[in-house]
């Protein structure tokens, strides 16, 4: 199991991804599962950096990854205002004459995840749990 504290800023995401990819290698995950894990982590963390609303200075997110049977489970806990990724609007297909390209990151998370859970983590924190096929 890997546990990380990830500061809420973009440069911290690359460090988290490097740690996740190293862990995935040791855990025997294949290249596709490793990619999906690093991608989902980036999309969720980048959303927190770019759109998360925090009361005062944002405390680092708590991230963990664990291999469980044939799956990998990624959990991210954050202190932002609650935002349920399952309820986010589905984005329209991108067009060249339309600059509004939002929601792509969460759409990717939903496509890659075999399971997605969201709920309170206590003390006003939120917990997002993603299950990914490890194959």
């Amino acid at each position, binding site marked *: 199991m890997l546990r990380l504290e990830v500061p809420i800023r973009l440069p911290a*995401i690359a460090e988290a991804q490097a740690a996740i990819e190293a862990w995935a290698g040791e855990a025997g995950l294949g290249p596709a599962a490793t990619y999906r894990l690093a991608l989902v982590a980036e999309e969720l963390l980048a959303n927190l950096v770019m759109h998360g609303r925090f009361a005062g200075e944002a405390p680092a997110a708590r991230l963990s990854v664990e291999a469980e049977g044939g799956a990998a489970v990624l959990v991210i806990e954050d202190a932002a205002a609650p935002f349920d990724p399952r309820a986010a609007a589905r984005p329209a297909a991108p067009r060249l004459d339309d600059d509004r*390209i939002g929601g*792509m990151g969460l759409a*990717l998370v939903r496509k890659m995840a075999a399971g997605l859970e969201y709920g309170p983590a206590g003390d006003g924190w939120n917990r997002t749990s993603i299950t990914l096929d490890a194959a």
Partner: protein
Amino acid sequence: MKFDVVEINDKANRIVLTGRLDSGTVGAVETPFTATIAASGRSAVLDLTALDFLSSLGIRLLLSAARVVSRRGGKVVLFGAQPMVAEVLAAMALDQVLPLVATEDEALARLAA
């Protein structure tokens, strides 16, 4: 992340993307990449064979570059994506705006179409 520009003819460039295009690299590459594509005034085929990782932030950069080229009457076509990069592109339903084909020849044929 690095990108190299190779002139194919007076209408098109090949742009070779190497490394990762994601939260760790988009900030540094965004301005020079878009400026290079805009300044050329040409269509572009993007060689993705050496692109190891692409996230939604990277896709946004590719989309904004394609938008600039399209305003000038050109096209952007992607080719040679690794399997997971291809999966990410397919998941985002980008066929209409950033078509992905297997080879450079197919990409050039799409530009001419």
